[in-house]
């Protein structure tokens, strides 16, 4: 199981602050593709972290079951 955390406006779209994705051998790119299809983030931009480290969305990384992915959009309030 891979844990996916959502923040800010992304969490508003997903209507949850985290969820567990049951997949094995899925690449980060494919996971993001699946989430995009499910939630339609569209113009909402965000950075992606794997295990507390921001990574390139285009990275060729195959997620492990213990990985924690986070979607971090920029905030603008102040």
């Amino acid at each position, binding site marked *: 199981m891979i844990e996916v955390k959502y*923040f*800010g*406006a992304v969490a508003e779209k997903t209507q949850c*602050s985290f969820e567990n994705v049951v997949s094995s051998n899925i690449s980060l790119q494919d996971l993001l593709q699946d989430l995009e299809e499910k939630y339609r983030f569209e*113009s*909402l*931009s965000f*950075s992606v*972290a794997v295990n*507390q*480290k*921001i990574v390139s969305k285009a990275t060729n990384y195959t997620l492990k079951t213990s990985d924690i992915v*986070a979607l*971090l*959009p*920029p*905030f*603008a*309030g*102040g």
Partner: protein
Amino acid sequence: MNTSSRYNRQVILSEIGENGQYKLLKSKVLIIGAGGLGTAILPYLAAAGVGEIGIVDDDVVELSNLQRQVIYKSSSVAKYKVDEAKAMIAELNPDVKVNAVAEKLSGKNAIALFEKYDIIVDATDNLQIKYLINDACQVTNKPMVYGSIFRFQGQVSVFNYQNGPTYRCLYPDENSSSVNCTDAGVIGISVGIIGLLQANEVIKMILETGEILSGKILVYNILNNEQQKYDFEKNSSFLIDKIVFEKKYKIVENIVNEIDAEAVLNEMDSEEILFLDVRNENERPKINFKNKIQIPLMNLENELEKLNSTQTIYVYCQSGIRSKMAVELLQKHQFKNIKSIVGGALALKELLKGERIKI
């Protein structure tokens, strides 16, 4: 140094001491935005004795600000935020010099403003201006203390600290959108907490103590008190230098290079510099430079072959107007090291007091 009893409770901290207090009093911090974050940061920096604080904001106080911008009073409504903030700090701590800048930050004023301070604090509420602050911090080589809010969540980080990662390394997509407090709603406590975390980073940088949130973004959720730090790395493809900055923010490129008449006095006998008089033959006073040539402005374009495009050339005329036009013309023809003497021959005559002058 008289730190008196005002700072006693922090001076007795071994991390601060007299030396740390001296650093605080010597430091200069610029806060962009006098809204929720800015008004949380400002009184704490001022109370701690940060010696000089600039505040940039062109807004006036509105009634709907008061629920979170707690330094303003009901009687502040309709007055400039920066003026109200300055008055508040004057009462809180007269040691602090406050510079109230009632302007909107733009590509035109950012660089000159940032150069006067050691640390730049982003307390703004829109994404475009965060990119501007980031870029101007890179050009001026200043650290940027970032904070922002989305409802009950906040982010804090320090960019461009000792050549560390920048806002663009974290969020490369400049065209993204995110709602601000006006549209999303916010409670004063969120901006208060995030603003104080920013103030804390400022103080740590000045004192050179603790760990700075450089290359890390802190995400705080006040509803469940969860906080996480995420690491990110520097990406050199997002480097912004002065040329890129000026192009991006469309600052007028035709800045005419000028030199003060006073600065010219020591160089009148220089072999390296050619003094170009663009007045007509009959104009007086004549000035005796070691290395000089006269080409009237109207002939200049046709007589460029008399000049070397890589040589340092100081151009002058009677008062400094034609020489500016000459500089623009020469720059168009790829001349590299051209300056116009401010005030022209008349200014030089004044300074030379009759020496080397033929009237």
